[in-house]
């Protein structure tokens, strides 16, 4: 068996094992019950979405209105990385309050999501954090919570003293896709 060379030094078996061990070692054992969640807010309400659905988070750029769609949930366009995507009014879908276009040009973020190779985004007042949260800490939704139109929320959890509703990623993507019609 030929001996591989690393930086002009022979790579001994001992060195190979040592390097591999340090790379494979993690700080703590992998916890399959912790999920990476992107936490954001609409006004004073906090929500979270699985980070596996989030492609990018950008400051809100100038949005371009789409003709004849002012009153729909897909009324504006934004650009990122040389591509043009649609901004979905997830605020309206979740909270019932329509985003006012002029407000969107001031501050906040756009969360760019990807669903089956198609990108779109939704504007939020702030992306607060991207946090690993233990699934065990999720509690069921209280009966008096605000109805999430067509969306499934899988539970709520506490973050930084605030109550955050965790959205089901797949149904959120489905609702976003459906808003194009």
């Amino acid at each position, binding site marked *: 068996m030929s001996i591989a060379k690393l930086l002009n030094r022979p790579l001994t078996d001992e060195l190979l094992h040592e390097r591999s061990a340090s790379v494979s070692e993690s700080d703590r054992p992998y916890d399959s019950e912790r999920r990476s969640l992107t936490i954001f807010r609409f006004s004073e309400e906090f929500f979270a979405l699985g980070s596996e659905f989030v492609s990018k988070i950008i400051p809100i750029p100038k949005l371009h*209105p789409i003709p004849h769609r002012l009153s729909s949930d897909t009324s504006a366009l934004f*650009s990122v990385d040389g*591509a*043009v995507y649609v901004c979905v009014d997830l605020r309206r879908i979740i909270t019932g309050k329509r985003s006012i276009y002029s407000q969107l040009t001031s501050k906040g973020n756009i969360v760019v999501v990807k669903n089956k190779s198609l990108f779109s985004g939704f504007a939020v007042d702030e992306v607060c954090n991207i946090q690993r949260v233990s699934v065990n800490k999720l509690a069921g939704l209280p009966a008096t919570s605000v109805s999430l139109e067509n969306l499934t929320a899988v539970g709520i959890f506490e973050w930084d003293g605030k109550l955050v509703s965790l959205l089901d990623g797949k149904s959120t993507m489905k609702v976003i896709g459906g808003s194009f*019609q």
Partner: protein
Amino acid sequence: MKAGSSDMSDLPLTEIFAIEVEAQREVMNSALITLETTPTSSKHLEQAMRAAHSLKGAARLVNRDDIVALAHGMEERIIAAQSGCRIISQNDIDALLAGMDIIASTAAELGVNDIQKASIEKILECLANGLVYQPSVSKIVDDSPVNADTNSTEVSVECVNADSQSYLRVEADHMNRLLGLASESLVQTNSFSATTKKIEELKRLHDQISNLLSSIAPSKSETDGPLRYAIKEISCSLEKAELKRAELAEEIENHSSRGAVISQRLYSEVLSGRMRPISDLHSSFMKMTRDVARALDKKVTLELRGQHTLVDREVLKQLETPIQQMLRNAIDHGLENPEERRALGKNEVGRITIEARGTNKTLILKIYDDGRGVDLEGIKSKILARNLSTEELVSKMTDAELYEFMFLPGFSIRDTASEFSGRGVGLDIVHSKIRSLNGNIKVSSKVGEGAMFELHLPISRSVTKALLIDIGASLYAFPLANLVAAVRLQVSDVRDICGVPTITWNNEQISLVDGATALDVTAPETNAASDLAVIIFKSQNEKYGLIVNDFRGQEDLVIQNVDPRFGRLRDVSAMALLHTGEIVVILNCDDLALNISKMSQVAGVTSIKSEIKVKKAQKRILVVDDSITVRELERKLLINAGFEVQIAVDGADGWNELSSNKFDLLVTDLDMPRMNGFELVKMAKMNDRTKNIPVIIISYKERDEDRLKGLEVGADYYLTKGSFHDESFVTAVKDLIGEVNE
């Protein structure tokens, strides 16, 4: 197989074989077509032999024994020709081409079907014995419409060619993403200019501080040691800071310039990666021309000029079908057979030329022949036979107007269809395809000398030339292909006709619509402007006006498609990004025209209804004109003035109305089908019931004899159609029949 540095390592062998077949097919077909006229050309025999030999070897690797046998038979025949044993004949070339067709059509399959197997056996027999090859299944030229939509996931293939160029297979989507990123990199380098400005601001602040220091230093330096020292230190630090700033500014400037140059080059390279020379289609055109000419017993030579003209591959792909159709038409309809040509003193070999030229992002393609030219009398007969127009109108049509009929669906001069043309489908397809590419086509012809089809197309579908316009607070683009004019008008130039703002431009009445209203987008509050920025555009031979906030100039835009989840977006064609990062929505002119028409009609109808509610016992006027536009304009002018109006579409219709209803005035055109204006007025004057009805003739004819004739038959006024821009028409009406309710 040539060992180029093509990255095909991840492809299955069968796919690589298919690519090889395509490459060798080009070589073989080109060589065989040349051998038809020069059968002893050693160079072309060698090319054909090598192609057959390569195919045999490649087929062996993929276990395609059927193709191995066929390629071997083809190779043997060519070798025999090379050695001088048997000069290659027309029959041999037919069989070799047919063999190549079978190989190409089955390359991607696992084998051949029974019919193909029988064909292969027949081909081999013909090649061995010099027999005439008759295909088992006749080849039918496909006239069916081709979907103009492009498939964005189609793989773009480059074949290894004999020039040892190395090629790479790249997915079309991948290229689009590259283009997007290259575009974004341009945007990012442009943003450096904002940073440079901030550094300039820094310099200004620095100079301010220096000046302040200078102003306090002299008065304190004598008596205050520590202060003097501090000022000195600050001045030194400021000096160092200034040097650093200047260094930084220069560095940023260099990076910015270099970045801009590289980004621009990257952008251009990616864009040009989509371009292909038009000669890519040459081989297929040559073969098709040869096949059709053979089938029709005609002799034809095809020349391609400007073959290095680069065209976007999407455009090139879409052009293949319409050009093939025009070639078929030229051979079938245009070119005479050899006997006819000899009798006319022409070379018995007909000539068709395809000339390509790229200029300023536009591709100009001319396809012309030296045949009999377009049969204008035949077109006229067909128009009349199909009742598409009247004899009188047809006799007045210009050649250009008559040629337009050739592109109508189902229109053909031929009474019977042949395999190649005559169904009236071909040129319709050509027209649709060219329009779908945002191009246009025009025809010219000289009887006995030939006909020419001239196509103007954007060189790239990825890039479109457009005029940037502000509507509301956002940026839109208007494709230049549809733009007639961009004008600034005074508000006073706009007239209100039945609630529809209208302007007169180039002696035409054009309805106006506000852009923000038409697109249903929010417009910011602005002070009332004294002038208007108006886009005049055309769609389906009608002109429309769109009021916009401002013009921003012309730009070449790289198109990005609309998110497919939308389906079709009303009034929107595509999107683009400027180099500044600003989004531009490219408008769909045909949609917009429809939108504007509907808006104008609603406004007109609403206004008419309200007018009718108010007025009672109105005077009734009969307007007779075969032109829809003129009729509607007259009607609106009169309704606006308060009269009740009935319309008729020609003289006979007008007489029906006049004889059965009561009218206070007759307004009539002169040139109309079924009964012209003179006849109508004469009849009205001869009838007891209608003889006292006053008459106004409105015509384009301005000659004195026409005016005299009009007055002789009994008209009270003779106006020309240029009088609509002022009040003379309505004044004449009121002069004859008084005010509305008198």
